């Protein structure tokens, strides 16, 4: 992933007329994001917070180059919305929608792998570049311009980490929530690579969870490729085995998926780790 895709200007909102779509369109605009249009089939001609509504992405692209799309379309139609954005070759697609069936994500991953589109999410809060761009639902006041890169699977922990840093006067360049689903677009490793290659980033915070193996992949990448300081916390130290906690991705299948095992792997890879988030934030200097 290249830094430019996040700082690009022309943003659209798919599902702009829905409750979440319209609410967060206004909040993104208030944060300074340049929203050029939105889609909602059958509702072309309406305005949402002053932003024109179109039936489809193709209609917008007749007149305007689209750099980024933020998707709020409800789960039953989210697959079609993501495919529409990939087909339209939009460089960055951020899908906020939660509850997308796993088979839909398998189809989408096949298309993404063959395209140039970067997908963040689904089931994620999106991206905040404090003082620059808000692409999603992360409250803008939580950020402070600076040089930390934050990446997290959990939406609320993304906010939590950013707000705590801001309260301590430590600014951030990137705040990225990659989403909690089992199959997702960009990974921890993609974001670590972005942070490592961006000279503006001086330190990295990684927040993982129980379930899956993406923290282990991150640990391997940190060990091999990351020279910047990494601070890591994995949520779910008290999780019972085999019980799903909240969303589908947070289920502890085996010992190697546990918070303790992942924390150990990240620590061995050179990251500074903690078993609780306030503790981790206190260790960031």
């Amino acid at each position: 992933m290249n830094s430019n895709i996040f700082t690009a200007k022309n943003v659209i909102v798919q599902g702009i007329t829905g409750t979440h779509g319209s609410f967060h369109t206004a909040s993104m605009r208030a944060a300074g994001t340049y929203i050029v249009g939105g889609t909602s089939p059958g509702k072309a001609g309406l305005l949402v917070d002053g932003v024109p509504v179109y039936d489809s992405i193709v209609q917008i692209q007749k007149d305007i180059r689209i750099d980024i799309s933020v998707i709020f379309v409800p789960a039953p139609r989210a697959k079609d919305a993501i495919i529409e954005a990939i087909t339209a070759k939009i460089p960055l697609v951020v899908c906020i929608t939660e509850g997308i069936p796993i088979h839909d994500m398998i189809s989408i991953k096949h298309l993404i792998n063959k395209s140039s589109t970067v997908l963040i999410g689904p089931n994620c809060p999106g991206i905040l570049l404090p003082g620059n761009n808000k692409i999603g639902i992360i409250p803008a006041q939580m950020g402070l311009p600076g040089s930390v890169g934050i990446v997290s699977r959990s939406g609320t922990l993304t906010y939590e980490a950013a707000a705590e840093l801001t309260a301590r006067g430590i600014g951030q360049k990137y705040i990225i929530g990659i989403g909690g689903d089992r199959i997702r677009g960009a990974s921890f490793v993609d974001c670590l690579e972005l942070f490592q290659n961006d000279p503006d980033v001086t330190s990295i915070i990684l927040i993982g969870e129980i379930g899956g193996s993406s923290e282990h992949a991150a640990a391997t990448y940190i060990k091999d490729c990351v020279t910047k300081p990494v601070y890591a916390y994995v949520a779910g130290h008290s999780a019972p085995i085999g019980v799903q906690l909240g969303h589908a991705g947070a289920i502890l299948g085996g010992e190697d998926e546990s918070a303790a095992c992942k924390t150990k792997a990240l620590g061995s890879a050179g990251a500074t780790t903690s078993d609780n988030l306030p503790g981790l934030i206190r260790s960031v200097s």
Partner: protein
Amino acid sequence: MRLLEYEAKTILRNYSIPTPDALVITKRFTPEISLPVVLKSQVPVGGRGKAGGVVKVESPSEVTSTIDRIFTLDIKGYKPTAILAEQTIDIKRELYIAILINLETATIQLMAHTNGGVEVETQTGFKVWTVETGRASANQTGEQLAEYYELPDQTFALQDLVENLYKCFVGCDATLLEINPLVLTDDNKLLSADCKMELDDMAAFRHPEWKFEKTPVNTSFVELDNNGNVATIANGAGLAMATVDAVAAAGMVPANFLDIGGGANTDSILLAFNKIVAFPNIQVIVINIFAGITRCDEVAKAIIAARQKIKDLPPLCIRLAGTNFEEAASLLSSENISTLATLDDCITKAKELIYE
């Protein structure tokens, strides 16, 4: 959501995947059964055979008593509401086949083993193929499967099986479909003798036909320790886990995990309060909300309602931040309810309340 065997086998038959002839017995209805028959307790756990939940019946005089016994037999905490009465089969070989999702590669895979019928966890050396839509993929995988099983004369049957398993897996939004054992009978037929099937709850919106016995598990509220002294309410699975972690790291005992979810409203949050006060030893409730899609004012309204409606509500350590925080703060302050700035502050306050 995990299906019961008879529910899964009904689906298999709809996809032309061969299963033994069978009838379903409920407490209200016992169909005409021809003997010999195998009676199988329909509980959503493994190890039914060892627990006595799978019984072969040959004599007419044993049918009723065996049915009664299986209905009252507890297997790992479950008692059946249905029994599967299945035709006995003459087993030549027991094989293993499953279709599942590889999360790392986002592909659908077929897993096979020549040694079926035993607990999968004890097996090593599975053969794995990535399968795709279409007859070509099924033909190729089926041919290799026949070679692997050393059953060349079953090539066509295995090609059909692979194609139908794939269609069933995708068409039903399944996350796991395991046939163990896949039986080769004495007369050279392949039959799915047992089946474990899990479906993706997220896909329920496009399956109005899903009317299964088991209601989906509540994943947003999980009991961690019934005797815990700190209850937690948070939004988002991550923040809810982090809240539990912070309570535990400070030496207190978290009683529960609770994620009130993105679209939480006053009613759903009030329901959460009611669940929490049912725990016997709760001394403090830590509420940690960082609102994105959730709106803080909805949470504030629920807190106010809970204080009015629930007698002896334990002390609250409340941290609210994010969307509509200002509205929430003014609602709470008009009711003289104070909030704290951070999770750290909530933990410190909780410790003071409990230990001082």
